[in-house]
């Protein structure tokens, strides 16, 4: 009966444009169009299987949905006790979609926040696809943006049906009924009721095809400070992650992967491994040698005792310096043209005041706190996966392919993930497919949980790719920027993956985003790119191409502005003119917030940076001094102004700006992955250094008021922090840091 469910679930999002209430219309006129009884009887039973199953993701916060009597669509479940459970199609790994998407439903449902619950939706692309991707998955800071109307319509449809049910039960006209904070009321008769009172009756009604949505001025929850639904479970140790999940008979699997990218296991000797207490089996898998054991410690000891011979004939064996030298040589000439205005080359050759700069950005690991993991059990007829699945459709397809199942025979329970920053969204579903090969290799006898150690994670590739940028700029006689030539060299993330269809003219947009769409009025400009192919797998890393393009463009711009003798904020505003109001809006807001231009404490300096990513605009000002301990910047305070359209949950936006600043800062100051003859030098947090609390600045955030549709906040806080710090550092020390990170890379 899944088709019935599909039919109604897809209705609310059939139209991508907002269904606005006509000025003269009201809810009451639409209620009359509601049809009869019938389908609702069935709808009430159409719970997706995973929604009925145990949900480890939300032991504390869940309403579970399994006792719901009213399921008007794929997203909303209302139980007799009036709890409203929202099935969340996006993974929760910190950016707040459980709270944000539940807010959108609650707003149109006129629910009380205390009755709202959130639970992970099962893997089912037909119902739960990301409307920005066409498959089920999370990324690109799209969770709120793509769900904004879909979730509101889901809530509005449920409200509509509850009101109709109440009207029918009370024998009153629906237009006399109001709903507020979860209370359905009919003033004239004095009758009141809760959602649960009408859940069963509402389940017999047909969902409206076009539920009316509120105008933003009518919002009572959107834009207010609502507490996160997942905080209590995460403050008491009760939140369940994949790492915490077990099944009867489960074996823990650690995989010995190749020491070089592109190498393969040739043979192995497991004599010593099999002597380790608790080790059950050892198998050769496509991507390494798997040790199966009762528990982590036995698996680790067993793997430590393993001896593997590797075929390194196709491997990347260069050291980082050689790769950088190669990229740098390539950067000397223009690459494939992606943007041109005027004649940059001629303007550069004609100008007297020219600067040239080369930037080197290292490979970066994501290093989420919860190391990568995946639990799977499988039979010949189906499989069930428990994972922090960021791209459910891709994971589902990959597991199905390995196990020779149909995708719909693979169920995925998406659990909380202990961070991702992009790492759980590999186009090849590396972890889920490894888990599938591991369970298959033992004849699908036991459930298995593949766990990465931190060393596996740091050594494991799928890094933010290494990039070299070469920039040339020229000033005219008045000190204004006359020419800009930007050459980028790096790997493509999309090429050779299912995402290659998003490439245009052979160019991967993630290589050039943030460099090819400069908002500044520069008369002669050229941006070009060279694509390199290496065996080191690259991946999106919180803010993707913007991680390096924002740094290169905003520091180089700052250098040219300084050379011309202008103020960094004033000069940017002038270059933006009056056609980039959202850029100028955040820049002015951050300057005001920080009191830019005020006297700065002795020994400190301030720098500014401005960048748009994922359709959100962010400006940051950083105040730095020189650390006496290690000579790198000590960042005291960061001011942030963000314009992300309608602010659904201002406190979560602030939290994402704070976290984005910290994540970006840690990496530009301390982090880098380097290779010694192809071998990754770093291995854990002792060598791949993370920002710690004593290195975290205070952060003050201003959210620019906007009526635009909401855009993401998970990533856009990251890009400006590097250049803001670097620009402050240049002012303080006179030194332009172009080779990241600031601190020496350890190994």
């Amino acid at each position, binding site marked *: 009966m899944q088709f019935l469910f599909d039919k109604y679930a897809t209705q609310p999002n059939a139209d991508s444009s907002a269904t606005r209430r006509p000025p003269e219309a009201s809810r009451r006129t639409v209620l009359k169009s509601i049809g009869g009884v019938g389908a609702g009887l069935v709808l009430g039973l159409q719970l997706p299987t995973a929604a009925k199953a145990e949900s480890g993701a939300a032991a504390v916060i869940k309403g579970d949905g399994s006792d719901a009597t009213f399921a008007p669509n794929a997203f909303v479940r209302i139980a007799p006790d009036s709890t409203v459970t929202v099935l969340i199609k996006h993974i929760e*790994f*910190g*950016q*707040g979609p459980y709270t944000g998407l539940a807010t959108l439903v609650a707003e149109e449902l006129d629910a009380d926040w205390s009755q709202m619950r959130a639970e992970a939706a099962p893997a089912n692309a037909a119902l739960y696809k990301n409307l920005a991707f066409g498959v089920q998955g999370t990324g690109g800071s799209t969770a709120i943006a793509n769900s904004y109307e879909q979730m509101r319509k889901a809530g509005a449809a449920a409200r509509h049906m509850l009101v109709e049910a109440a009207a029918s039960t009370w024998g009153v006209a629906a237009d006399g009924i109001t709903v507020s904070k979860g209370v359905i009321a009919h003033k004239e008769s004095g009758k009141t009721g809760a959602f649960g009172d009408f859940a069963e009756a509402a389940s017999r009604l047909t969902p409206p095809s076009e539920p009316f949505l509120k105008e933003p001025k009518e919002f009572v929850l959107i834009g207010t400070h609502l*507490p*996160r639904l*997942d*905080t*209590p479970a*995460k*403050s*008491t*140790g*009760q939140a*369940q*992650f994949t*790492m*915490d999940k*077990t099944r009867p008979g489960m074996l*823990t699997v650690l995989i010995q992967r190749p020491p070089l990218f592109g190498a393969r296991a040739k043979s192995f000797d497991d004599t010593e491994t099999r002597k380790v*207490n608790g080790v059950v089996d050892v198998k050769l898998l496509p991507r390494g040698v798997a040790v199966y054991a009762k*528990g*982590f*410690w*036995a698996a680790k*000891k067993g793997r430590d005792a393993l001896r593997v011979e590797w075929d390194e004939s196709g491997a990347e064996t260069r050291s980082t310096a050689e790769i950088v030298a190669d990229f740098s040589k390539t950067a000397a000439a223009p690459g494939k043209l992606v943007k041109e205005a005027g004649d940059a080359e001629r303007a550069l050759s004609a100008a007297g005041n020219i600067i040239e700069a080369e930037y080197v950005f290292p490979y970066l690991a994501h*290093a*989420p*706190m*919860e*190391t990568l993991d995946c639990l799977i059990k499988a039979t010949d007829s189906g499989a069930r996966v428990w994972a922090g699945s960021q791209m459910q459709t891709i994971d589902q397809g990959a597991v199905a392919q390995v196990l020779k199942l149909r995708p719909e025979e693979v169920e995925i329970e998406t659990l*909380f*993930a*202990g*961070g*991702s*920053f992009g790492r759980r969204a590999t186009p090849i579903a590396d972890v889920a497919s490894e888990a599938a090969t591991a369970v298959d290799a033992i004849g699908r006898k036991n459930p298995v949980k593949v766990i990465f*150690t*931190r060393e596996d994670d740091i050594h494991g590739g799928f890094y933010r790719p290494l990039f070299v940028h070469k920039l040339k700029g020229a000033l005219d006689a008045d000190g204004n920027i006359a020419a800009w030539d930007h050459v980028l060299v790096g790997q493509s993330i999309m090429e050779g993956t299912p995402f290659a269809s998003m490439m245009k003219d052979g160019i991967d947009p993630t290589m050039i985003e943030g460099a090819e769409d400069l908002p500044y009025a520069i008369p002669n400009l050229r941006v070009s790119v060279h694509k390199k192919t290496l065996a080191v797998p690259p991946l999106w890393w919180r803010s993707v191409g913007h991680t390096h393009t924002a740094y290169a463009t905003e520091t180089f711009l700052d250098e040219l502005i300084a050379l011309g003798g202008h103020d960094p904020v004033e000069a940017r505003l002038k270059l933006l003119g009056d056609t980039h109001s959202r850029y100028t809006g955040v820049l002015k807001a951050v300057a005001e917030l920080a009191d830019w231009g005020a006297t700065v404490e002795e020994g400190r300096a301030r720098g500014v940076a401005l960048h748009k990513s994922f359709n959100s605009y962010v400006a940051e000002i950083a105040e730095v001094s020189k650390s006496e301990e290690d000579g790198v910047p000590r960042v005291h305070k960061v001011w942030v102004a963000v314009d992300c359209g309608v602010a659904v949950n201002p*406190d*979560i936006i602030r*939290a994402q700006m*704070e*976290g*984005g600043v*910290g*994540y970006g*800062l*840690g990496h530009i100051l301390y982090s880098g992955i380097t290779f010694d003859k192809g071998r990754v030098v770093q291995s*854990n*947090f*002792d060598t791949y250094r*993370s*920002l*710690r*609390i*004593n290195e*975290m600045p*205070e*952060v003050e955030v201003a959210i620019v008021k906007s009526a635009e549709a909401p855009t993401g906040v998970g990533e856009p806080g990251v890009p400006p922090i590097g250049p803001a710090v670097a620009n402050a550092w240049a002012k303080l020390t006179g030194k332009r840091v172009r080779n990241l990170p600031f601190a020496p890379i350890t190994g």
Partner: protein
Amino acid sequence: MAKFALTVNGSPHEVDVDPDMPLLWVLRDELGLTGTKFGCGIAQCGACTVHLDGQAQRSCVTPIEAAAGGDIVTIEAIAGPEAKAVQDAWIKHDVPQCGYCQSGQIMSAVALLRETPQPGDAEIDAGMTGNICRCAAYVRIRQAIRTAAETLKG
């Protein structure tokens, strides 16, 4: 394999494991107490912090033979005025993002406040510097500890 006795969250337990098995994996894999997290395995990140005889301890590098006989408290049973103040403040400030490191952060914060009931900002940083949060929720961790200290002042 050998037998070890230990008290966890007030209850006596006996486990039969390798003497070098870290306390972290005894708690997680033998006793099913999964609130204490694995993050690095080398005492660099603090996600595995528990209280051993009242002291904050990185359980990932504490072999069971060294912890045996000890009185261990984990996030599942942390109690007392400091713990309540800290957990309430964590919820008030919506500290967690991904939440994975938060058990360890809370165990460290409670230990800090038991030792230094009214810490200054530098003492908060010093007391919490062993706990990595990759989401960088540090601004709120600081705020929450300040709030908890205020609460404890009464």
